[in-house]
């Protein structure tokens, strides 16, 4: 492992801090001005993100002009923490990896901001919404732009706050408030892991800066690398909704739809993938670690598919689909080597098509009085032409129909899984990814057919579905173009672009199956899954849940993961707090109250000495004087010393 070295920022690139500062200032203005900004606040929010996008594009082009070995810009703004030997710079790093993330966050972010102007039009809290949204963008940019793990953690917590605020945006609804709390608590579990991992890095390497940590990996023991990596993985799993911390993400759909699209599909939930990709020198250094990451990814992608196939809420299906797709990304970063870049390509492509579909879902809800139950949709292709077409591109992209983007981004990951060196691993993970592809095709087709085709099953109050206004459809169209084209464009350019981060591509490995066979297989399972779903749901579905077999029932209940969490963590937790409260009331409070009563009583008694008579004061002074002088003389005469 050669030492990692980043070039200092020069010229235009020394203003990369503006990327974070602009949305942050905008958020501050929107929050501080309050109602005065209600009329124009949303436009300020859009403008802030759009300017960050334009700046990001300029920096990106500038970065591309640098030679491959110097393609990075490190900028130290000021001493953030300086205590003893612990020194943290407020430092930023703009390199190929953070560059593509900046473009994804600000690019997709701008479109979703624009969409939200229309979506939130009648909401009295629109200004507040845009303030939080800008805050999120600023924090997310800080997360990907930091040059050390403390900056990353800062941004990590920042997006956590923004996510919490936005999930509970409609805080008067109990379900939204609960979902916010759930997301917050489960994220804490992961965040604690990340924090401890960072502590451990500091204690072993003496720094949290990327270049120093990565250069120090060689000097760490294998166990240390494994522990640090597992802790980082815990953090990543929390933020990205991966097993075993996946339960919060579907509930997070209680927030407004643009939030689901930007934060809980396109950007924030991919932060875990970013963390692992960024820490690739740590993960590459330990094979056990990579195996754990791959297993988490494979398991999660299957869980997501299975549960997604049993849900009837349009946003929850998409949410479980997000869980599953991020599973693919984890699988990619876990495989290591060339698959790092593949995972990033899938992440970017997913950002487009999943945002597209979430916004499409929002558009459907907009036209259907916030109905989210797909059993109550059907036949919407005609009244919502644009939404139908754009959603169709997203659907075909995610299931991986060539030449749409999902085909170029997902299929190579499946192939890479089959290329693992150990045979049993190659079969296990390859087949998991392949089955996942088939299931994805099944549940996404089910969603698509039930929403846009078949007989209309609308409720009484939703007799007149309508297309959304232009401000919502234009972002949809742009994202649809991205869903169609992005995969091919990125799969040919991004891996080369990321070479400075992940190293040279290794020589071609031959897997247990040839690449062509895998491509054909994955297309076959996709078509099978889609065809099955089309056949089953073309005539609609029952309006109420029907009794079902054991698998469907389990999937409807999230594979009992919530029940498991409740039984294993929540109940013992409740008992523990009860026991502690009891101990607190009887033991500690008793002691404290006893002490307090003692002090109070003592105070009351001592008070009587303060008689108000000068004579008694003088007497007490005289006593004191005798004691003081007596003590001195006693010391002198050797009685005390």
């Amino acid at each position: 492992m050669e030492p990692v070295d980043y070039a200092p920022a020069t010229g235009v690139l020394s203003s990369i801090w503006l990327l974070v500062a602009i949305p942050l200032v905008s958020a501050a203005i929107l929050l501080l001005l309050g109602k005065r900004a209600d009329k124009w606040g949303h436009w300020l929010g859009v403008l802030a993100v759009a300017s960050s996008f334009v700046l990001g594009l300029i920096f990106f082009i500038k970065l591309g002009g640098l030679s491959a070995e110097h393609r990075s810009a490190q900028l130290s703004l000021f001493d953030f923490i300086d205590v003893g030997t612990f020194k943290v710079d407020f430092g930023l790093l703009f390199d190929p990896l953070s560059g593509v993330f900046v473009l994804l966050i600000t690019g997709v972010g701008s479109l979703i901001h624009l969409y939200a102007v229309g979506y939130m039009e009648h909401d009295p809290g629109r200004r507040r919404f845009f303030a939080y949204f800008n805050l999120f963008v600023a924090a997310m940019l800080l997360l990907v732009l930091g040059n050390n793990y403390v900056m990353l953690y800062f941004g990590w917590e920042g997006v956590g706050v923004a996510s919490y605020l936005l999930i509970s945006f409609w805080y008067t609804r109990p379900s939204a408030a609960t979902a916010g709390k759930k997301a917050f608590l489960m994220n804490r579990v992961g965040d604690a892991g990340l924090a401890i991992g960072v502590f451990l890095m500091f204690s072993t390497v003496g720094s949290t800066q990327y270049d120093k940590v990565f250069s120090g990996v060689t000097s760490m023991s294998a166990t240390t690398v494994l522990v640090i990596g597992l802790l980082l993985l815990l953090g990543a799993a929390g933020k990205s909704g991966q097993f075993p911390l996946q339960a919060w993400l579907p509930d997070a759909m209680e927030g407004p739809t643009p939030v689901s699209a930007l934060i809980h599909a396109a950007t924030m939930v991919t932060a875990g993938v970013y963390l692992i990709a960024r820490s690739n020198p740590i993960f590459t250094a330990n094979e056990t670690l990579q195996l754990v990451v791959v297993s988490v990814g494979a398991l999660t992608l299957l869980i997501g598919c299975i549960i997604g196939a049993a849900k009837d809420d349009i946003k929850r299906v998409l949410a479980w689909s997000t869980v599953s797709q991020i599973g693919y990304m984890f699988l990619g970063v876990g495989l290591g080597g060339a698959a790092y870049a593949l995972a990033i390509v899938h992440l970017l492509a997913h950002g487009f098509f999943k945002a597209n579909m979430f916004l499409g879902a929002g558009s459907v809800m907009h036209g259907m009085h916030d109905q989210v139950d797909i059993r109550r949709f059907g036949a919407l292709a005609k009244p919502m032409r644009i939404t139908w077409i754009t959603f169709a591109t997203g659907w075909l992209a995610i299931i991986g129909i060539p030449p749409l983007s999902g085909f170029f981004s997902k299929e190579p990951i499946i192939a890479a899984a089959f290329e693992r060196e150990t045979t049993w691993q190659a079969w296990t993970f390859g087949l998991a990814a392949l089955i996942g592809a088939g299931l994805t095709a099944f549940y996404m087709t089910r969603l698509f057919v039930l929403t846009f085709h078949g007989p209309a099953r609308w409720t009484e109050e939703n007799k007149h579905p309508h297309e959304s206004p232009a401000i919502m459809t234009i972002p949809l169209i742009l994202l649809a173009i991205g869903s169609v084209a992005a995969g091919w464009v990125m799969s040919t350019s991004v891996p080369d672009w990321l070479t400075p981060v992940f190293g040279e591509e290794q020589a071609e490995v031959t897997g247990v199956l040839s690449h062509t066979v895998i491509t054909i297989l994955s297309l076959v399972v996709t078509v099978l899954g889609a065809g099955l779903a089309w056949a089953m749901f073309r005539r609609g579905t029952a309006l109420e849940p029907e009794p079902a077999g054991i698998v469907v029932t389990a999937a409807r209940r999230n594979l009992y993961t919530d029940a498991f969490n409740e039984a294993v963590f929540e109940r013992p937790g409740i008992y523990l707090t009860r026991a502690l409260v009891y101990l607190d009331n009887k033991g500690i409070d008793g002691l404290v109250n006893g002490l307090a009563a003692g002090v109070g009583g003592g105070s009351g008694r001592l008070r009587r000495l303060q008689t108000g008579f000068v004579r008694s004061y003088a007497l007490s002074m005289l006593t004191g004087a005798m004691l003081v002088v007596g003590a001195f003389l006693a010391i002198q005469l050797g009685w005390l010393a």
Partner: protein
Amino acid sequence: MGDLKLPEIDYGALAPMLILFGVACVGVLLEVFIPRKSRNVVQLTMTLLGVAAALTVLIINRNTRIVTIGGAVAFDGPTIFLQGAILVLGGVSLLLIGERSVEAGGAFVAQAAVVVGSDKDSKQSTGQPGLTEVYPLAAFALGGMLLFVAANDLLTMFVALEVFSLPLYLLCALARRRRLLSQEAALKYFLLGSYASAFFLFGVALLYGYSGGVQLSVIHAAVDNPQHSQLLLYGGLGLVAIGLLFKSALAPFHVWTPDVYQGAPTPITAFMAACTKVAAFGALLRVLYVAFEGVRWDFQPVLGTVAVLTMFVGAVLAVTQTDMKRLLAYSSIANAGYLMVGVLALNDAGLESTMLYLVAYGFSVLAAFAIVSLVRDSEGEATHLSRWAGIGRKSPLLAGVFTLILLAFAGIPLTSGFTAKFAVFGAAYEGGQIWLVVFGVISSMLIAFPYLRVVVLMWQSEPSESTPAVSIPGFLTAAALGIGVLVTIGLGVYPSPLIDLTREASHFVR
């Protein structure tokens, strides 16, 4: 007589005191010549200008280090820092003393000699302009305090003690309302003060017998190289210390404090709590660090016991107080204990942290009494705690500021109280006095209770019919309050400039 040699006098070093004494003398004359109506403005302006001039001269001479006027006055780092602190705190106190709009005529009586309860008394209490002799008296007291912290021999110190004490006795007696309480407070303060002075003077005599001189450097030399019975030394040390402990309000010599703080006019209470404390601890530091350095491990345990006793008496008795001014008096006693912990660190850090604490506490306590002077009804200040219930609902800003000050007293971070407490405890820890730190922390927890109880009372109780209206502060009170609050926050957030100043000022000359 030809061989009588006059001592060298450095007038630059003496100038701040000379200016204040001059201002005081002129002030007495002005009482005769200026018409009653404009007296207050003229006196206040002139005294403030005097303080400003003294401060300017002090800053100009900030690099001087000299023992002058025949060894009577030492002008060194601690002197300059403490004189500066006294002048700044004194200036802010003068703003409170000069306030005339919160209560018609001000906080001071119109004629001190009227019989309490007579028609004249009730007439004067309803708006006749207050006495303006308070300004020259305050200027005399300030001058005396400046000399007290600079005095390099025990006799000069005694004279300075009397020079600043006598005006204070008088000032205590001048409250406009509750005349009897005020006069009683002044008499008690005077009697007990004289009593303590007698101890001090007797101690000086013993030390003279021991060392053959009254200068601190002479005593220091004699301690190193004793010629006479050590009994004289320890007796003298104990008695001199008692005189200073009295002024610093350390237990068991604190007994006067609650009564005097309660009875005195509130601006004077603020003045005593801020400036007298600086002066008394300044002198204590100098005596202990300069003259008795050689026996410091002998006096340390005795005075350490005094410090612990003080902290606990202050904290425990504060718990059951029902009067705001008495509560603040006990708080002031407890704070004297924490200051003593800093003093007894007996190292450079101890000196630095004690000086830091004096400044931090001075500004907070000025702000606290400024607020006390604002909560009032037709009878004057409403100092009973029950009257403060629910005041947060009626005047959230004032209650918020008072909450901040109380949190500072309790030593909550981001306030000056935390910085200062941390500094003194840190110094004591560094000096090996861990037992003092342990007791200090325990008593800090105890005294947090009465502070927080007031906070709870202000915010959590419903305001009743009898909750007094809060007066709109006049410009002067607002300025004093603002300065106090700003410093309280400033020293909590960014204390390093003041800490640097104390570091530069941490060497006594001998």
